[in-house]
């Protein structure tokens, strides 16, 4: 087979260019992390190494609150998205019904329209119902934009499998519920996992939607930072951001590895 004849080796020019882009992508992240270890209170020059800010950040109650809010919102909205998104994907796979196409295209609305638009739509909606912004409105908003990603990811997984596998389970004596538990669910699990990770990433990354749908008590860490930037940010924010960056990367890397294992087995 001479299928892969493309020259797969690094050319010096390419390497240099790629390194430059990666540097561009990572530079600000390194800066945030580096200054979390800086003895100076100002994010200007690196004066010396310290872990002081990692202790100090716990004293900043508002900051910690915003950090926990971020985690809670991400966690809860991911769980809700995964459950109703997976159910929806299964329904779209199993059943034929009127307006099925309408539903599947509506799922793309939150994906394609600018977040800002439905952020203010939700703001108007909640306000007109006299609901003041709190954790619940924040979670609801996050589910709205992350759930379609779960549906699409799980659906893509379902589309790839042979219906006769489920039939085989029925044929071998499993009822509908047992078939779902023993065959369908394990088979879509990589899709569910990657959909969930996508939802988690979207939620952790979000600024625009949270900006409008979070209340004073439910500020998230990014919002907190946005509010502080003008006045200058203290290094304990860097410490907490570093924690969040590292935490996210660790969780997502782990799940990518798990997902890879699951898929490779099948």
């Amino acid at each position, binding site marked *: 087979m001479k*299928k892969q004849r*493309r*020259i797969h*080796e690094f050319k010096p020019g390419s390497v240099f*260019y*790629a390194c430059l*882009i*990666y540097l561009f*992508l990572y*530079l*600000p*992240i*390194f*800066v*945030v992390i580096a200054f979390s270890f800086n003895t100076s209170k100002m*994010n*200007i*020059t690196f004066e010396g190494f310290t872990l002081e800010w990692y202790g100090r950040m716990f004293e900043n109650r508002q900051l910690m609150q915003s950090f926990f809010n971020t985690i809670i919102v991400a966690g809860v909205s991911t769980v809700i998205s995964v459950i*109703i998104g997976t*159910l929806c994907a*299964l*329904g*779209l796979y199993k*059943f034929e*019904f009127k307006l099925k196409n309408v*539903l599947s295209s*509506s799922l793309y609305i939150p994906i*394609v329209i*600018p*977040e*800002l*638009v*439905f952020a*203010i*739509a939700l703001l*108007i*909606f909640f306000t007109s119902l006299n609901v003041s912004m709190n954790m619940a409105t924040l979670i609801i*908003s996050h*589910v*709205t934009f992350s759930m379609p*990603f779960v549906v699409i*990811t799980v659906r893509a997984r379902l589309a790839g499998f042979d219906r006769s596998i489920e039939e085989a389970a029925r044929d071998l004596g499993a009822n509908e519920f047992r078939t779902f538990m023993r065959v369908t669910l394990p088979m879509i699990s990589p899709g569910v996992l990657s959909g969930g990770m996508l939802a988690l*990433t979207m939620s*952790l*990354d979000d*600024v*625009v939607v949270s*900006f*409008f749908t979070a209340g004073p008590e439910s500020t998230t*860490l*990014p919002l907190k*930072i*946005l509010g502080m*930037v003008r006045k200058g*940010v203290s290094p304990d924010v860097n410490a907490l*951001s570093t924690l*969040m*960056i590292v935490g*996210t*990367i660790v969780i997502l890397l782990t799940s990518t590895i798990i997902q890879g294992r699951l898929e490779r087995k099948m």
Partner: protein
Amino acid sequence: MIKSFKKHLGILGTVGPTVLWLALFLLIPLIYVIGISFLTKNAYGGVDFTVTLSNYVSLFQSEYGKVFADSLWLSLETTVICLLVGYPFAYIIANAPKKWKPFLVLLLMLPFWTNSLIRTYGWNTLLRTEGIINHFLQWLGVIERPLEMLYTDGAVLLGMVYALLPFTVLPIHTSIEKLDPSLLEAAGDLGAGKVHVFTRVILPLTMPGIFAGSIQTFIPSLGFFFISDMMGGAKTMYIGNLIKNQFLSARNWPLGAVLSIVLIVITLILMRLYTRVGSLEDMA
């Protein structure tokens, strides 16, 4: 009939929650936006139920015209720069040795996974007048006095390109990956030089990726108000900030609603153009 009842129950139980959710928290809110765009703002920052078209008429005030022009121009600049910078990058990753490829893609995804505001904040730190880059350049002796980098239009553009580059690169990378290498060989075999192989074979075949990447860069860039907030210092007003202000400081919700509808219309037009060449599935 029992069977069809069971089927209906099945549909309701699976698709139902999503339909309900989208109707309640997406469709109805969007209808609210349309509704409120026809109402009048009152003195207390709320709305009166007096139907009017004046909000739409006010769109044509010259100050808003400038905001739209500036925003679309910024988004266009962002998209073009992302394409120019991102295409070769995507090409390099797609043609990297097999062993390295997954790692390089992962390396591209990692910053994507971390909060964009925190990353923009990193740039803010870097670009400050008393920030690292200025210090570094002064230390080198390249400049005498610190440059004004932050809170300029250039800084906003940088922030936009930074936040959106992965959205451009990933679809292009996917479409380059799909290229059948034998096509390139065939083109070479038929006498096409390197430039022609690129312009006549590679470029046309990766067009779907280029379109998907452009759309995914252009549309979100219209709404990223926090980037201009953090990097631009409100010297130039963009549509995202304008909308935000209508809801927070100016308290003119009807106008904000009209501006959002303009954003939706722009999005719909772009999507319409896009679906002629690509499919929605490529967007996710």
